[in-house]
């Protein structure tokens, strides 16, 4: 990553919003909007269905994707249930009323069929992903990562599929999985996050467009990082992807998702579902670097990131590890969770959540201990500045029949301004006396003496803040795959420029 900036381009008939211009303080503008280097949009022929949500729209989406009847039925059931619901209000978030009829629920680059080779992909799409630094070209095979790139509603290109297929690994777009592996999808879809789970899960189940599907067969260690890159490009659309990962007995996979969106004045809705199933002795590492557009300094625009992520560790001694670095989105509502139903299963959650300006984040995890000998670790690091609100919300539950369970939670907040808010809402429900549950929490600020000490050694304040913040977040950053740890560290530094108030 470098500091090169991309100016927002005008995108044909769908103009991209420019960041607020005419601000007296160019420096502030630079720090608060200029540094979102993914704010450009691309002029790509896109098929968008009219805004609005009805049974007809659900049928239309299913039809466009040539889906089997069972999947349409699944969508319709979800839609009918969703209609009975109202959005949840329990989070420490001020979410403006969302007009769900004003959103288009399907946008796709015009190409009808999934491309067979790189030559068939619209060069403008390739260019978009190249500018984002995403290696979707086959020749970048040596970069050691397989990528599924999702633009707006559909998967654009999945790389390395053949090489992975030789090992029996399936890594493809969700639509392709429905077409090519319908039995697998049907077996697992909605089993971890049912459409009745919550409002946004019901919405996603009704209108989900695409996403990634991963299956790692018994005994296979996936030899490379699998990565999905999500990009919202079109204006006025929501993105509703679904990721389903199944790790069969004794398998291992490390999966990473990254997200960006253009800078626009309006808010964009992202309501995704991630379901993970981990069988006996299998291990899944799921890493997220979330950098959706966060809105401008006054809180205009930005993505509403309302996501349900959950893994079911039903295998004996299975392990699921969530690592997230959250710097983007106007509003974040997500709680990557582990249901530990296999004996000796291990759940981990490592999170760095940065909020600044008017950003709001309510994020955390749930560790549900259903089986004996299960262990979980939660390390949450919040960093807040500006007028932002940053909340940790967590649940640790130990079921009556789960003996000898163990949880350790560490929940730290770092405040960089006097006007931000950091909150923690930990809930602990223990129904078995043999459980050991620990919760530690700290709140700290960067002190004037710490900054002066750095200054005295020649380190300017901005660099000193970056050093201290990176030091604070190091424990979580170390959990990311190497190449992303470097990226995420730079992202933190850029995000927090000029942010000590």
């Amino acid at each position, binding site marked *: 990553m470098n500091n090169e900036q991309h100016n927002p381009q005008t995108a044909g008939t769908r103009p991209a919003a420019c960041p607020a211009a005419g601000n007296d303080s160019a420096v502030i503008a630079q720090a608060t909007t200029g540094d979102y280097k993914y704010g450009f949009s691309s002029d790509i022929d896109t098929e968008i269905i009219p805004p609005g949500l009805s049974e007809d729209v659900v049928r239309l989406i299913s039809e466009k994707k040539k889906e089997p009847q069972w999947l349409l039925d699944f969508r319709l059931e979800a839609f009918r249930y969703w209609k009975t619901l109202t959005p949840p209000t329990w989070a420490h978030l001020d979410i403006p009323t969302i007009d769900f009829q004003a959103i288009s629920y399907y946008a796709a680059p015009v190409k009808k069929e999934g491309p067979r080779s790189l030559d068939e992909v619209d060069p403008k799409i390739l260019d978009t992903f190249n500018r984002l630094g995403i290696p979707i070209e086959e020749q970048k095979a040596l970069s050691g990562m397989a990528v599924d790139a999702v633009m707006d509603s559909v998967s654009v290109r999945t790389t390395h599929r053949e090489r992975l297929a030789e090992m029996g690994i399936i890594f493809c777009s969700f639509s392709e999985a429905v077409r090519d592996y319908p039995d697998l999808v049907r077996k697992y879809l909605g089993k971890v996050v049912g459409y009745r789970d919550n409002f946004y899960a019901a919405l996603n189940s009704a209108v989900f467009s695409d996403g990634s599907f991963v299956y790692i067969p018994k005994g296979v260690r996936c030899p490379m990082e699998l990565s999905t890159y999500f990009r919202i490009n079109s204006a006025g659309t929501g993105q509703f992807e679904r990721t389903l990962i199944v790790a069969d007995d004794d398998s291992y996979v490390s999966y990473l998702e990254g997200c960006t969106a253009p800078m626009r004045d309006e808010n964009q809705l992202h309501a995704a579902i991630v379901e993970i199933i981990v069988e006996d002795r299998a291990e899944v590492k799921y890493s997220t670097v979330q950098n959706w557009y966060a809105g401008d300094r006054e809180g205009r625009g930005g993505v509403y990131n309302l996501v349900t992520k959950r893994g079911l560790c039903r295998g004996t001694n299975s392990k699921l590890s969530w690592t997230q670095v959250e710097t983007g989105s106007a509003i974040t509502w997500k709680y990557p969770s582990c249901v530990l139903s296999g004996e000796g299963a291990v759940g981990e959650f490592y999170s760095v959540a940065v909020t600044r300006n008017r950003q709001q984040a309510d994020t955390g995890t749930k560790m549900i201990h259903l089986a004996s000998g299960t262990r979980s670790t939660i390390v949450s690091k919040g960093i807040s500045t500006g007028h932002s609100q940053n909340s940790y919300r967590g649940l640790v539950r130990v079921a009556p029949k789960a003996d000898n369970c163990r949880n350790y939670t560490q929940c730290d907040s770092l405040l960089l301004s006097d006007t931000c808010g950091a909150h923690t809402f930990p809930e602990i429900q223990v129904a078995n006396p043999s459980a050991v549950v620990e919760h530690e929490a700290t709140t700290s600020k960067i002190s004037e003496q710490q900054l002066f000490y750095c200054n005295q050694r*020649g380190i300017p304040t901005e660099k000193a803040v970056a050093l*201290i913040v990176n030091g604070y977040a190091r424990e979580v950053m170390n959990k990311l795959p190497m190449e992303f740890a470097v990226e995420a560290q730079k992202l933190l530094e850029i995000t927090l420029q000029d942010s000590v108030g």
Partner: protein
Amino acid sequence: MKEALLKVENLRAGIDGKEILRGLNLTVHPGEVHAIMGPNGSGKSTFGGVLAGDPRFSVESGSATFHGTDLFGLSPEDRSHEGLFLSFQYPVEIPGVTMVNFMRAAVNAKRKYFGQEPMGAADFLKMMRQKRAIVELDNKLASRSVNEGFSGGEKKRNEIFQMAVLEPRLAILDETDSGLDIDALRIVAAGVNALKTNDNATIVITHYQRLLDYIKPDFVHILYKGQIVHSGGPELALELEEKGYDWIKQQHQS
């Protein structure tokens, strides 16, 4: 006579509107070691902090010229780049930031100031090894967080280590002897002496004569109520040790 490295004239400075330094004058030439002694509350640490740019203190009037430059016109980091080093009486802990990252940021910020490329990782680590040997810090230093969990002696040795890395023109040692046992004191003093050249200078701020057995001053100044009221050679420190500060207080009572 060489040109003055530091010339402080009529310096008045304080904290929260309370004046602590009341017209302080001091001139330091390259190659010299000055000791500033005085009873508690006389303004010794304020003087060090004001020179380094500690934001708690504000300068009311007077000037400080550092090898020809107006010191108070420079940011704290630029004062550092120009060669001013303050060894803190209470070194600050910075959790999570390793010494190697901290010092690399410091060294490269200085190199950037002088238009130089960042130092390569291998060269940097080699330099770290050489410099920590001066104060007998072990190789775990690099991976430890800045001052976090350091003993009192380790903190002060770590200050001198940083001084060795940054090679200042003027080092101000603020109560570097406080909280040190005799072994640590020897190590710290030996480190300071090893770094002494004809081109740099040291201001040793101390309450006791003890440190001056190891770091021999050329000049000793007595600071009282924000002014240097007495200056002399090394013998002045011995006199203070013998007679205490009461005679100074009595002389300046009126």
